[in-house]
Every structure is written in structure tokens, then in C-alpha cells.
């Protein structure tokens, strides 16, 4: 697999390897388990960003066979809990694990191992979170503002300031990874696209790259350029949505209307360019299903981005808006590194990381994208990063248009494994695929960016914020619950 190193170690060496990689400065990216040849094989994915390569550490795992990885690498906590929920592998010691994808009251079913008791209707919620003393838990969600995803937030507060916050994403866990087991890759692509619809292009491209890497093929040159165009169009409209939501949460309704006008125009650009408002159906195995309508993009995109730029500049001059974003939901650089954040959230906390530049796949070498980084770490810094990325994305789209075209390459049906990645609007998205003999999907591991970034939402909310700041932080993070819950 080009661009990826694979290392196989024994479970006993796991602790020293993780510690060693930590000192070496490798960035933890993913940890997942796969039921293979009678046991469970764990794979840790590390981003060696300066060497432009990923390192996949494979090791057989036994229940309670290794010390908690999250003690050495705090970033790995969410994946460690998910590892237990999906394949039943627990670290040694008695440190409690949190429920990530399954509701707290559902008994463990280890779906990836083929288990799967019908999770009965929840009787009683025993959250990991009992609140004692004089603070109390303010229940917020899962049914929230009209048009926002189902997400439960347990706000522990002393009246106004948020002391602690924990999130339940499991209302939206559809078990896509378990559902993909045994499917044909084409049918898998249809489901992968609908796992996190707002990052459909990025997730499907990562999945297609993984299968292409497994098959050892490269997409044709025009298809690579089309992929860049689609990816950047998706980035532009997502960032426009984040600006619109920020205005909604700070209460600037005219600003929200202006941003929504720009957003609608961008969605109509997507429709004109690829025949789908949210760019579904662009990526295909071995290439792209259709090329972009170049003249439609050249005619409509600049006008739409202009609309967005004017709205954003007006917003950045509105003190009431900017004051609300300054020092709101601050994620310090150190926390961002400790939790292994990716995407605009990380770039706004002074972490210079972008999969397009650090791990370029064909087409990105020439594109040489420029990465915007800010060090404020608050909602304003995140907005500035997103605004800068919209400008850069427009440049990339218009630059790649001439070379963009349709076309796919046939992929040999056969066993193999591959790691694919893409820079979604929310950050680095990984997809790991292993195919069995008949070329069907034995195991698919999807790790959209929200899986890494929702962790920082708790820290940001705990940094001396009050109730009304929570929606603003959520809008400035702009992570999807569907991307986390899969």
C-alpha cells in the first residue's frame, strides 16, 4: 500500500510501541478491531505527517490483554471504548469505559462479532454521570432546535456556567460498519455516502481510495481532478453552512439570511456541476461517475462565493457578532494536540495539519493547497480558518476545472486491504477496507473527522462558558452527529 507503512507486532509490545510513537511525535489517527482468523486483530493508524505517510500497526488483541492505550495516548480513548463496544476487547485494569455508540442501558452485543441482540426499548437511562453536591444536570436534547441533529447534552451547571458536559450520540448509531460486512463494494459505496451526508464526497473518496489501494490501481488523471473539484465544492458549502449557523446561534438573523442566500446559491452550483445539491453520486470505484459541468461552475461559483465573502466581511465588522465569538469555546493548542484533533478545529488551535498537503494522493501534488492556520483556538479563529479555506477552495476548483473529466479504471476483484483518506470539510477522514476472496467487503472501518473532534467540544464547553455559548460552540465546531455515530 503506497503512502502507508504496515507493522505487525505482538500484543505485549503494544505498550512500548505506543509510548515510542508518542515520543517520536507521530500523530494518533485511529484504533479499531477486526475479527480475523479466529481472534481479533487490532490496528492502530498513526499519521507520520512530516514523512507524508501513515503507519498501520497491526497486533492480535485479547480481552484485557493490554494496558489502557488511552493512558499513554489520551487521544485514543474514544476508539478504545468503541473497540470494546464493537468487538468486546477491554484493556486491563479497571478504568471505566464510556458508552460511545450503544445506549447505556443496552446490554453489550459486540455487533462486529456477529452478535446482535435486538436492543430492547430503553427502560431506564443510567448515564456514567451522576451529579452530586450543589450543581445539577440540565438535560438538553436529544430533540433540540428545529433542523438540528438529535444529540443529548448533559450540561452539569451551577446555574449558568457550564461545569461539565457529556454527550450521547447513540440516538443516531445505525451500525453502518456492521451492515457493510459481506456487501459488494458498489453497494457499500452507496451506504458509505449516506453515513455522513454533509461529508459524502470526502468519505466516499476515502472509501474508493482504500479499495483502489487494495486493488493496486490509480484513478485516471481527469478523474483525480474531478475528485479535487468535488471535494473543494463540498468544503465551500459546508463552511457557508457553519457561517449561517453561527449567525443563527448569535441571534443575528439578517446575517443568517445573507449567509443562507450564499449557501443556497452554492448548493445550486453543486446541482449544476454534479447533478446533486450535496454532491452524492460523484465518487465511483476507480474514478468518478461523472465529470463536472465546467462552464456552469465558472459562471455560478464566483458569484456565490462573492455573496458569501461580502456576508462574512460584514459579519467580521459587526462587533456584537465578533464579541460573541471571541474567547468562546476555546480549545488550547496543547489540548488539541493531546486529543488528536483534525480539520479546521485543529488548524484554529495552531496545529498545521491538512491531509491534502501532508498526505497527497494523485492530483494533490500539483494542486499544492495552501493551509490556513490560526492560534486563537476560539470560535472566531475557527470562523477565520473556514473563511480562508473557502477562498483557497475556490482557487483550487477553478484551477482544476480544465483537467477535470469522467472515467474510471477497472479494479481487479480479489482479496486485499487498503487505507484511504481524504480531507473532509471537518478534517482528515480515514477509511480502511479489507476484501475477502470473492472481492466482497470483509471489514470496513470508517473514521470520519467528527469521531476525533467531538471530544474537544466537551473541553471547549468547559472553558468557562455559559448556557448560551453551547450552541455557538457547536456551530463553530460544525461537526455532524451522523459522522460520529455512523
Amino acid at each position, binding site marked *: 500500500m503506497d503512502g502507508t507503512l504496515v507493522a505487525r507486532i505482538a500484543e505485549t509490545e503494544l505498550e512500548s510501541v505506543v509510548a515510542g510513537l508518542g515520543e517520536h511525535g507521530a500523530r494518533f489517527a485511529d484504533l479499531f478491531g477486526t475479527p480475523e482468523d479466529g481472534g481479533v486483530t487490532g490496528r492502530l493508524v498513526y499519521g507520520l505527517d512530516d514523512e507524508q505517510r501513515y503507519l498501520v500497526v497491526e497486533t492480535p488483541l485479547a480481552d484485557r490483554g493490554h494496558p489502557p492505550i488511552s*493512558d499513554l495516548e489520551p487521544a485514543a480513548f474514544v476508539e478504545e471504548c468503541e473497540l470494546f463496544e464493537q468487538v468486546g476487547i477491554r484493556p486491563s485494569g479497571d478504568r471505566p469505559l*464510556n458508552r460511545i455508540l450503544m445506549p447505556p442501558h443496552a446490554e453489550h452485543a459486540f455487533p462486529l462479532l456477529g452478535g446482535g441482540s435486538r436492543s430492547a426499548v430503553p427502560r*431506564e*437511562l443510567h448515564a456514567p454521570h*451522576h451529579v452530586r453536591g450543589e450543581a445539577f444536570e440540565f438535560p438538553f436534547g436529544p*430533540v433540540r432546535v428545529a433542523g438540528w441533529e438529535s444529540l443529548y447534552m448533559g450540561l*452539569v451547571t451551577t446555574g449558568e456556567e457550564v461545569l461539565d458536559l457529556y454527550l450521547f450520540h447513540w440516538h443516531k448509531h445505525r451500525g453502518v460498519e456492521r451492515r457493510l460486512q459481506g456487501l459488494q463494494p458498489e453497494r457499500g459505496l452507496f451506504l458509505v455516502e449516506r453515513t455522513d451526508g454533509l461529508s459524502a464526497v470526502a468519505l466516499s473518496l476515502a472509501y474508493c481510495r482504500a479499495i483502489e489501494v487494495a486493488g493496486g490501481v490509480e484513478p485516471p488523471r481527469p478523474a483525480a481532478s474531478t475528485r479535487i473539484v468535488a471535494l473543494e465544492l463540498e468544503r465551500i458549502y459546508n463552511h457557508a453552512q457553519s457561517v449561517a449557523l453561527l449567525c443563527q446561534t448569535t441571534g443575528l438573523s439578517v446575517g443568517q439570511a445573507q449567509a443562507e442566500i450564499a449557501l443556497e446559491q452554492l448548493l445550486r452550483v453543486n446541482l449544476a456541476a454534479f447533478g446533486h445539491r450535496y454532491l452524492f453520486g460523484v465518487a465511483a470505484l476507480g474514478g468518478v461517475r461523472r465529470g463536472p459541468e465546467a462552464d456552469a461552475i465558472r459562471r455560478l461559483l464566483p458569484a456565490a462565493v462573492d455573496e458569501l465573502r461580502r456576508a462574512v466581511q460584514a459579519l467580521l465588522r459587526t462587533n456584537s457578532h465578533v464579541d460573541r465569538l471571541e474567547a468562546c469555546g476555546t480549545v488550547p493548542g496543547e489540548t488539541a494536540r493531546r486529543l488528536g484533533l483534525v480539520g479546521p478545529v485543529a488548524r484554529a488551535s495552531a496545529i498545521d495539519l491538512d491531509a491534502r498537503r501532508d498526505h497527497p494522493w494523485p492530483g494533490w501534488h500539483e494542486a499544492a493547497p495552501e493551509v490556513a492556520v490560526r492560534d486563537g483556538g476560539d470560535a472566531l479563529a475557527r470562523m477565520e480558518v473556514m473563511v480562508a479555506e473557502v477562498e483557497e477552495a475556490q482557487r483550487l476548483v477553478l484551477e482544476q476545472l480544465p483537467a477535470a473529466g469522467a472515467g474510471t479504471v477497472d479494479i481487479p476483484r480479489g482479496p486485499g486491504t487498503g487505507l484511504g483518506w481524504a480531507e473532509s470539510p471537518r478534517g482528515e477522514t480515514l477509511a480502511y477496507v479489507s476484501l475477502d476472496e470473492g472481492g466482497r467487503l470483509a471489514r470496513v472501518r470508517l473514521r470520519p473527522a467528527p469521531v476525533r473532534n467531538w471530544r474537544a467540544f466537551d473541553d471547549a464547553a468547559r472553558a468557562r462558558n455559559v448556557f448560551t455559548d453551547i450552541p455557538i460552540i457547536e456551530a463553530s465546531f460544525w461537526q455532524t452527529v451522523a459522522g460520529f455515530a455512523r
Partner: protein
Amino acid sequence: MIHAAAVLLVVGGGLWLGAALLGTLARERAGLLVTAGASALGGAAVAAGGTLVAVHGSGAVHTVGAGNLVGTVTLRLDPLAAVFVAVLGLVALALGLYVPRYHEPGAGSAYYLPALALAFFASLVVLVAGNAVVFLVAWESMTLFSYLVVLRHHRRPGVGRAAFLFLALGEAGFALIVAAFAILATQTGTLDLAGIAARSGAVSAGWRDAAFVLALFGFGFKAGLVPLHIWLPEAHPAAPADGSAFLSGLVLKLGVFGIALFGFELERGGPAWWGLLTMGLGALSAVLGILYALMERDLKRFLAYSSIENIGVILTALGGGMVFSAYGQRAIGAFLLLAALYHVVNHGVYKTLLFLEAGVVEHATGTRDMDRLGGLIHRLPASSVISLVGTLGIAALPPFNGFVSEWLIFQGLFQGFRIGSNLIGILIVVAGASLALTGGLAIMGFARAFGIPFLGMPRSRAAAEASERGQPLAGPGLLAAVCVALGVGAPLALTVLDRVARATSGIEIHSRLLLPQLTVIPAHTDFAAFSPTYLAVFLLCVAAVPLLIYLAGRPRGARRVVPVWDGGILDFRGTMQYTATTYANPTRVTFEALYRPEFHLERASDDPAGRSGPVHYRFQVLPIFERFLYRPVVRAVEWLADVVRPIQSGDVNLYLLYVLLVVIVAYLIYTY
């Protein structure tokens, strides 16, 4: 008519003494019932007697001579004291009705009930004492019996310490009171209160000031003025419900009586700065009292701090009255005295009610911590309604009595412009403004004190399983009725108090109660007017109209009861509601400089991996007065004790030497 009143008082006192004796038999049910009945009847008689004296106290002080035990034990039926006697009687009556269902027969009750009855008796004697010595003896015995009352649950932790604190500060106050009386007695040459009152004008200014200040701080200890208040929030939770009701409903009032006695009778017509000092301390007590009350989670400690606040309000009114009188505005001065006395009566009624209700809540759920109560209105419906009446009363909301008395006090204080010098006028209005702030915070405090325990969902199993069976309702119910009666029938009550004010200050105050119109005007017709009775009737009509509209237009369709909307979570638990501290969070944040809170937070998510788990948050207000006033004083006294210790060397010869030295010194002083 006065003789009838005197007879009633004597009968009442006798019944209390009988109750005290019978109390010792309170090991079984019958003994307990009889004692309670006797003290209740005694209370009724004393209340009637007090009212009669107040009504017919035609300005003159009636001295009824009695046997000459130690000198002549003269009693005095003074209208000013009559108001307090009436309150004493009412409180005793309510407690008498409350005791049977609250206390179990047994050894504890056998010592407690007599102590309580004797405390009533001692208070009565204090109020009708005609002679300084009788006053002081009765005052000391009242303090001692109250100490015994607080010690009821002496086995519980902290009760001993709280009772000792009450006694210690009580003695400190007593010392000052004795000094004040000593000064007046030596200067006027008589021990008889009426005599002192008559000749106090001739006493030199220096001595009069000293006597007043000593009396103010001496009685201030008992009344709970701010710097001297720290025993109050400790003693009330320690005492049983009826004990703390007696403490707050009556004992604090005796402190106020003392100050009013000195300010308006013994040393009438003092300089303006007396009034300003009293008003200043009163306003300070009011504001700090309610601020600290808002931070309390324990129901009784909250009510204790709220008592400090109300005493602050009363003393502000008294102080204002003294200032106005000193500047010649005697009509407003008398009016403010009337308003203060009316607030004394009101507070005596609804504070006792609230303490009795706090007792019921503790009796039913076993806890006073507001954060473990909730939803009691469903479990204790009658008690909830009664305590709602008390809460509306103390929060000074129309049409209840608290509103009328606070309205009177405000109208009095806001007429500060009638005083010549602007500075004094401004100071009075500032005091009024601080009372306004207190009023606002009091409404928030009592919305919290009623809302958190009674409304919402139960926050603990104890609250969920509370039951009203066997809980005392008669006592608090009676007080609730009196609350409403005093509120709606305010003009009647004011006519009685008008007589008292005239008897005390000697002015026919202009607050002609326009009985045909049932309206009240604050001493001057051109300032404000208001009729509590019509207001109550108007409020009832206003409330009835929307009710009728709702009943008429109610959809007839099938009714479907659905749980409250909670965002769709699985189980909305009691712990997901606002707690007492978080409800008062805006005040805590605004007055952070005053509270200087320390808080302790443990949360699982501080773990670097961000593991979500249990959170524990504790919050503590810095007790400023204990830390920065009393502790240094105590340390200074202990240091002094160490310094003096060498004198007590245990060597007899040295002691003889000391005796010789003292004799020599005394001889030298005597000869010069």
C-alpha cells in the same frame, strides 16, 4: 377595663406556670396533652390581655402594685409592651396547638415543655416589668430557659455548641443591658421604669448617649443586629421547630422591645444620631441578612437569616421614627413607630408559621436540606398551602400583611424630604432604598424557599415518600388565618396600633384611618393612600375573571395527560432540576465580592483522556463576621488569659498578699 386585662395576664401567667409543673408529667401522652393545652390556653389569655391593654392603654402607664418580695415588685401595663404581649400570647397559642403532634411523650419532652412554658412566663414578666430589677431578672431567666429550649436535642452533633454560642452572646448582651440600666438608675436615682422615664430628661447628655448605645448593642445581641447576629443561624437549626419558632417569633422581638423601650420611652427625645445609628444598623442587617439567606440550603438556617433581615427592617423603621421625631416631624416619627410595631406583629405571625412548617417538612421527610426535597405539594398539600400563605406574607406581596407593613415603612421613609437638612433626608431615603433592595431579594429568596422544596419533582426518596398523616396543622393553620386577617383587616389592626403609638409618642398622628373608606394614609394626606381591604377584594376579582374565562372556554374534547416535555430523554429525574444554590446563582455571581465563595470541584472528565463520569461540586460562603470579628476577639481574650495566668500560682501566701494590696489601694482611693 385595665383590671380585666391585668386579670387576664395573671391568669395566662398562672396557666404557664401550671403548664411548667404539669410538663414534668409529660412522660405519657396524657401529660403531654395537658401541658400543651395549658400553655395554649395561657397563650390565648395573654394575647387577649395584651390586646385589651393596647386598645385601652389611654396614654397613662398603669402600675399595679404587688407584694413586696424584694422591694416592691411593680408591674406596668404599658401599651408599647402590650403589642409584644399580644404577639407572645399568639405565638404561645400556636405552639401549644403544635406541640401534641410534634413531640413524642418521653423524658425529653418532660424537661423540654416546662422549659418552654417557663420561657413564655419569663418573657411575659419582661414585658410587664415595672421595675428595672424585675426586668433584668426576668430577662436573664428568659435567656436561660431559651438556652434549655435550644438544648432539646443535645445528643445531636453541633446542638451543644450552638446553644452555648446563644448563651454566651446572650450573657454578653445582658452585661451591656445591666450597664445601661445602671447608668440610668444612678443618674435618675430610681429603679422604677416610670420614674426613670419621667426624670431621664434631666440626665446629662453624655450619660444618656452612653446608656442608649449600651442598650442598643445589649438588646442588639438578642435582636440579631448584624455584627451581633452569629448565634441566630446556629441556634435555630439546633432547636426543635417550636423552639426555633419561639426564638425567632418572640425572643428577637424582646430585643426590639428593649431598643424601642429606651428609644421611645425611657430616653424619649434623644438626639438625631441615635436614630441614624439604629437605622444604619437596621438597613445593614436587612441587606446582609437576606444576602446570606439566599446562600443557605438548610431551610431553618434560611429562615434564621431571614429573621435577621426582618429585624433589620423593623429597626430601620424605628431608627427612622427617632430621626424624624428628633427633627420635629413628630407625626411621621409616630407613624414609623406604628409601622414598625405592625411589622413586629406580622413578622411574629408569619415567621413562626414558616418555622412550624419547616418543622413539619423535617418531621415528614427527615431532612431540612432543600436540595433533597421537592414535589412536597403533592405529598403535603395542606402544609404547602399554609406555608404558601406564610411565604406570600413574608415576601411582602399583596394582599397579605407583610405587604401592608412594608408599604407603611416605605411611605414613612420616603418622606425624608420633609426634614430640613438635606444630608439627613438623603440618608433616610438611602435606608429606604436598601430596604427596597432587601424586598426584591426577599421575594427571590422566598420564591426559592417555597419553590425548591414544595414544587417540581421530588429530588430524593425521602421527599417522594413523605406523608401528611399525623402532621400538625392546627397551629400553623391558625397563624395562616391570622396572616390573612391582618392583611385584609389592616385598618382595624392599625386603629389598635394607632392608640399605642399615640400613648407612646404622645402625638395624635394624622393617619386618620378613614374607616368608612378603609384607607390608610402615611401621616400626611398629600403623599400616598392605599386601602388593603379594597386591594384584597380587587385582587380576588382580578383573579376570578381569567378563571371564569378559562372555565367557560375550556375545550370539552377528550383529555390526554402526558408527562412534561423534557427534550425526549428517557427518564427525567428529580436531580435534573434547579437546586437551591443554582437558583440563587445570579445573586451569588453579583455579590461574589461579599461572599468570597470557596468551591470544590471533582470531575471525572479532568482525566487527560476526557473520560466522562461523576461530578461533585461543593460551594461554601466565607463567614466574614466569624472569621474577621469574633475569632480575633476570642483570640485576644485567650491571649489576655494567658498573660494573666501567672497570677494564679496556687501559692496561698501570694493570695494573702493580693488581698492586702487590694485593701491598701481601696483605702487610698477612699481617702482622696
